């Protein structure tokens, strides 16, 4: 407050009138001031976390590219000429981890014998 020196009545009256005037702005002006303030405070968020905002579009672009790659990827591999389907490494892992694999190991001799019989026939 301008109280460094005692104010005269004139100064007090004038100051009071000016402060009241600033409180009686019309709604449109108050609204525009409020929007300006919000924009400035929003800038504060952008300023403090610039990387977060910068990486957002990049992350979205990468995700979109991954989706496009999946959609445009070639079909699953066709069977090889000998009639057996080539197994991809990931599918290998699934088979090994499946519960049936224990039975496969237990009956390993039987399946070897079956394969030999099929080859001969």
């Amino acid at each position: 407050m301008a109280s460094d020196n005692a104010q005269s009545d004139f100064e007090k009256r004038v100051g009071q009138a000016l402060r009241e005037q600033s409180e009686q702005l019309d709604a449109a002006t108050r609204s525009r001031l409020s929007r300006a303030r919000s924009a400035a405070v929003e800038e504060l968020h952008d300023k403090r976390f610039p990387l977060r905002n910068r990486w957002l579009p990049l992350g979205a672009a990468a995700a979109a590219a991954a989706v496009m790659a999946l959609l445009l990827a070639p079909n699953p591999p066709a069977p090889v000429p000998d009639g057996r389907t080539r197994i991809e490494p990931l599918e290998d892992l699934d088979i090994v981890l499946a519960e049936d694999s224990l039975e496969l190991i237990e009956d390993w001799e039987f399946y070897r014998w079956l394969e030999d019989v099929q080859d001969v026939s």
Partner: protein
Amino acid sequence: MPGHGELTLPGAGLRRRVHGAEESLLHQAAQMERFLAGVERPAFCIARYSLRDEDEALDAVQDAMLKLVRRYSQRPAEEWPPLFYRILSNCVRDIQRRRVVRNRVIAWFGRSDAPGRERDIIGEAPDIREPGPEKQQQLDDAMCALQQAVENLPARQREAFLLRQMEGMDVAGTARAMGCSQGSVKTHYSRAIHTLRERLGEHW
């Protein structure tokens, strides 16, 4: 340090720091919001007294807010008022300079086609924001006289007077906002009061 048996997950410290930074940001944003909400109206009035145009005054306040946030938001909050008004003063001066250049350009091109120039009907139309004769009569004579007297003060006197009376800044804060010594502020303010008292004596 975590005690025995307390499980510390990797990255927990980082998460705590990020959480702390976010809380600090929210606190600072709330503080800035409160500050700007408190100064926006007097700042607008001060800019309007200097520019005599509401749109340009709003532009000046908006620019000042953005510049304060971009450049000085890290400074202690008690430094914001003089910084903000210093920036606002510069924004007002920038607008006044642009206005001078624009008027010169318009005057230059206006002269070249003066003989066959068509009347600018839109430009000559009365400003609808200006109160008409009837409303003008209804306005408080004393307030009108005060506004005119303040508008007609020399720029530095007006700035010192408005910062002290409308914003309520002390001499030291006004000096920082105006970029001058406290003695200069006292001189500008004293002359402003003297002039206003002379011009408004019969009303106030």
